[in-house]
């Protein structure tokens, strides 16, 4: 099956205003959460790894709108946005970043390792690409039990060169698993540009050898993402097997907090920020369609900021874990 390159424009969409406002709020929540996390990192309240999602918000928010609550999500280490999009509590996520008892993993997992059975979020994973077979296995579990769910597996343009990705593609297609693979192409694997790392950069073609359909999507346009997501998820849920979506997106910050991102020009970043920002684009559309005015958008911003302020406070007030926690959860009782 040939891969198709399709782009949709937000302007053409017939999505209802309430849905647009919801997207706006969800993207803004991720943006403000990440800004706060970056700020707290600078203050020494968060240490170690912290990979910010700023710039890529439309990808997870658009994809989540294509899912049912029973569907699963698994991703790599740049995972705060995915968790918030799944509906996980910003307090629990932020408290995990500060290493506190109230964190999703009681401070034992940190930025890269949180999990929510309630929200069907199967983790942040730290080994690049290793979550791809995991997501494939979750999809296998759904098919095994004849459940109608789909598993979304996110990975980046760096992970796309890992061998286990292709092992997974082969099996997902061979067994027609309800798996949707989302390649978040933000153009840099740490500091290595896609041109320097990949023999071909049309990543949506990467399933072609296995007959897996793929599509490139403007990942800065939440409506384009949702539309492509609905198509891909529908395909997988219908028992037709896996689908690949390449989200063309961009991260404004460095790979991690310790990366000054000197491998790219300021102009390149500035151009994305000013011309393609997913939140600003949607804000403009809301105003143009008279779904909201500036005052209404500001009100959303204030509400989101309140949520983030409360999360940041919780993350600093929650106690540190008891020393005994060092030894728990290594092995589970039978």
């Amino acid at each position: 099956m040939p891969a198709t390159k399709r782009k949709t424009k937000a302007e053409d969409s017939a999505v209802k205003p309430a849905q647009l406002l919801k997207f706006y709020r969800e993207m803004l929540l991720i943006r403000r959460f990440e800004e706060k996390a970056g700020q707290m990192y600078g203050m020494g309240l968060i240490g170690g790894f912290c990979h910010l999602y700023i710039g890529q918000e439309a990808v997870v928010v658009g994809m989540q709108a294509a899912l049912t609550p029973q569907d699963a999500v698994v991703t790599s280490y740049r995972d705060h946005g995915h968790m918030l999009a799944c509906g996980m509590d910003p307090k629990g996520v932020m408290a995990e970043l500060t290493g506190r008892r109230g964190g999703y993993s009681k401070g034992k997992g940190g930025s890269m390792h949180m999990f929510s059975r309630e929200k069907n979020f199967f983790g942040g994973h730290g080994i690049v690409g290793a979550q791809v077979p995991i997501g494939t296995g979750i999809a296998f579990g759904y098919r095994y039990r004849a459940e109608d769910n789909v598993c979304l597996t996110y990975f980046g343009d760096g992970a796309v060169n890992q061998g286990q990705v292709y092992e997974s593609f082969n099996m997902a297609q061979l067994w027609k698993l309800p798996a949707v693979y989302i390649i978040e192409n933000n153009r840099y694997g740490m500091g290595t540009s896609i041109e320097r790392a990949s023999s071909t950069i049309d990543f949506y073609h990467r399933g072609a050898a296995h007959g897996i359909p793929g599509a490139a999507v403007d990942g800065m346009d939440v409506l384009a993402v949702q539309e492509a997501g609905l198509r891909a998820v529908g395909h997988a849920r219908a028992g037709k097997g896996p689908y690949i979506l390449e989200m063309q997106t961009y991260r404004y910050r460095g790979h991690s907090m310790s990366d000054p991102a000197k491998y790219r020009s300021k102009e390149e970043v500035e151009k994305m920020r000013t011309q393609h920002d997913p939140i600003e684009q949607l804000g403009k559309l809301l105003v143009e369609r008279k779904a909201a005015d500036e005052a209404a958008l500001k009100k959303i911003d204030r509400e989101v900021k309140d949520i983030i302020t409360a999360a940041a406070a919780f993350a600093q007030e929650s106690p540190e874990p008891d020393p005994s926690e060092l030894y728990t959860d290594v092995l589970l009782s039978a």
Partner: protein
Amino acid sequence: MRNAAGEITYAQALYEATVQEMERDAGVFVYGLGVDDPIGMYGTTLDLHKKFGADRNFDTPLSEDAMTGIGIGAALAGLRPIHVHQRMDFLMLCMNQLVNIAAKASYMYAGQVQVPMVVRGIIGRSWGQGAQHSQSLHAFFMHVPGLKVVAPVTPHDAKGCMIAAIRDNNPVVFMEHRMLYNNRGFVPPEAYEVPFGKARVLAEGDDLTLVAISHMVVEAIRARAHLAEVGIGVEVIDPVSLAPLDMDTIARSVEKTGRLLVVDNDWTNCGASAEIIAETVERFQGKRAVRVARLGYAPVPCPTTKPLENLYYQNGRTIALKAYDMVKGGVGHWEPHGEDAKEIAEFKGPF
């Protein structure tokens, strides 16, 4: 399957355990290269797909790395996979998934998830298995918190450990030595668990404690018979499970004998034998003088040609000689007599 004495083979014991657990729990499934072929992994998975359906016993592509991840994903989604590797050596391709994800998931996510997965690794030997089809590698897995490692020797323990492994909520690396597959022993027909972390004292003795791992238990029993001829009493201990490891049982025996020889089905350096010796010395230092030694594979990759392969492995006689030296303090000369182990010399496959 059973003879008049209620005995079945090691391979049949594994099969029986798997069938009983698949009947009990619809979430248990078996997968791996060749599990549904007509030989059925030496009989251990024979025709399970006919009995339980092709969804529950299936062949896989040669993709050990991702296949392990798929098993972990399925386990996270609530199933109980049994991943079979015809040779332990191929587990090297699964290390990332096993060590970085399976072993750590419950800890990283603070006990919210479990990975109830059994990884069966079959250890090859004889007829030129060579460097890449003969390794045990249990030390790699014992090293990692979050993994359990078991190496049952008798048909009874093979069945009980398999049932316990399937029911365990943690990832279990299940080691099976190919040379044990045709051994017969009494196996209760009903389902039962052999608990992990409990060693077996297979034979008692006062002069030396002999801890042997996997197939080396068979050779240790032969060594004990040799030593009995010269009046040396050997206590043979099979740890059964290597992680968790029952050091208390071993230490109790060493307290009595004052001598510990560990024979591993693996290299000695940084291995299970090194670990058992180190823990023993830590327990007894300053309290009691203990003589310790270990034996294992020659420190080389496994050769294929028979004359060299025979030198590579320990056997009843080499073990007996070492034990004799430990007890007699190097005084006197003795040469144990007897034939080489028949099951090895006569082994003609299938591999």
